């Protein structure tokens, strides 16, 4: 105790240094980019890309990817896959092909095969086959021959 009393000041300083050191470790590299909020626009940019929010949109842009969310749409593109979503249409494009859907139609294409479907017509081309279906007929053709038939 006698020792402690004699060195109170030294011990206190040592403790402060230790605690400060721990805080310093916790706060190292506190921020990785630049953010701002001006008016109705918020942005943040760092080495990953740039985020921007306006009253009507939210988007992200980087060297490899962009996406945007608007009140009625979402678009996405990462250089390999792209996606677009609107109230009436959703479209995907990627290395495997592209496909699209609306409330009444759908289609697909990959360069070798394709399919289109509407409320009244369906057609398919691929695998050495051609198919067509209309309100009045069905047609099929492959390397072995062709076939045609009526439908109601």
């Amino acid at each position: 105790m006698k020792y402690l009393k004699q060195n109170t000041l030294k011990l206190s300083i040592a403790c402060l240094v230790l605690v400060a050191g721990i805080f310093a470790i916790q706060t190292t590299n506190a921020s990785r980019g630049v953010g701002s909020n001006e008016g109705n626009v918020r942005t943040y940019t760092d080495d990953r890309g740039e985020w921007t929010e306006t009253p009507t949109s939210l988007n992200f842009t980087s060297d490899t990817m962009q996406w945007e969310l608007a009140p009625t749409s979402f678009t996405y593109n990462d250089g390999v896959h792209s996606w677009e979503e609107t109230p009436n249409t959703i479209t995907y494009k990627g290395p495997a092909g592209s496909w699209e859907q609306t409330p009444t139609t759908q289609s697909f294409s990959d360069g070798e095969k394709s399919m289109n479907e509407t409320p009244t017509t369906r057609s398919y081309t691929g695998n050495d086959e051609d198919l067509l279906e209309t309100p009045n007929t069905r047609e099929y053709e492959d390397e072995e021959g062709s076939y045609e038939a009526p439908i109601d």
Partner: protein
Amino acid sequence: MKKIVLIIFIIIVVVFAFVLMTNSQDSVKDAINDIAGSDTRVFSKTCINEFNELYAVNKADLTQCSSAIRAGSFAGTEPTPKENNVVLIFDASGSMAGKVGDERKIDMAKKAVEDFVAQLSGTNIQVSVVVYGHKGDNTDANKKASCAGIEELYTFGSADGAKMERTLKSFEPTGWTPIADALEKAYAILKPYNTDTYNNSIVLISDGIETCDGDPVAVVQSMEERGLSVTANVIGFDVDDEAAEQLNAIAENGNGSYFSAASQSELDFALQKQIDFMKKFDYRMQRVSENLQDINSATELHFGCVKAIEVERAKILLDIYADERVTKECAEQVDAMYSEKYEEVQQSLWNSFNAMVKDFKQKS
């Protein structure tokens, strides 16, 4: 002694400081775990509270992400085609007694039909055999009786090879060629089967033209007008140009195909094609259409999750850095963990999506 006391004191101070600066990270872990997995990092109590406030406001609905990540493959569809009904109209007129090579045409045709029906055994294809020309003879005196002699010798039903063999042995070629009335008979057999559920087709095998004063082209033309779509396919067996022209007209007006056969193998091929094309069309079209619906739905689910995660991260980062709603040290900690988890989830999502698309390509 004094050194020991100093060391003990320092240890006590360090432990005390550490306890003050850290606390349970459960609430942050719970929040982050909603995105992906557990994390062993330790956050200050202040940071936990700050982040929980942000997370409560910006948390996206990620329920669909579980399904998107688990998808991982594309089952594809195996459609059930429409049932097929086939009425075979068999020409047993006198001319079928003629020969191609060393064999009678009637015997070659019977063999082709027998083989054809054998292949239909066990399928959902219903078959009937209507025979004409096997009654009376080909004299003018017996023309009326012969032309009226149209019979369904194999009653409409599933294909039975043994029964068909007996049927084919029960008649011989003798008389006239009432194609128009035979087509009417076939139509009457198919009439109960609506085309929403069934593919109805007629296969006419003939070696000659109508000789009973009927109009077979008019008959097939009228079928749809009378309420039932029927495909009339025609096989012209060893026919001359005149017969080929009329038989082709029947097929054309019956929305069917005309096949010319001059040998056993050509006859076999022509018969087989009738069914092959029907089955192929239904199977391929239905399969492609349903697969496309499925991949569209799966893609929508996938990008719905991508969107939710991206938007959630964007809003949290903007709150953290643009609005400075948490302390810098907390921002850095949360951002680091959040980004790491974000990458994990995105990677899982894309692995699942890419595997699914690969399957879709193979199955479509």
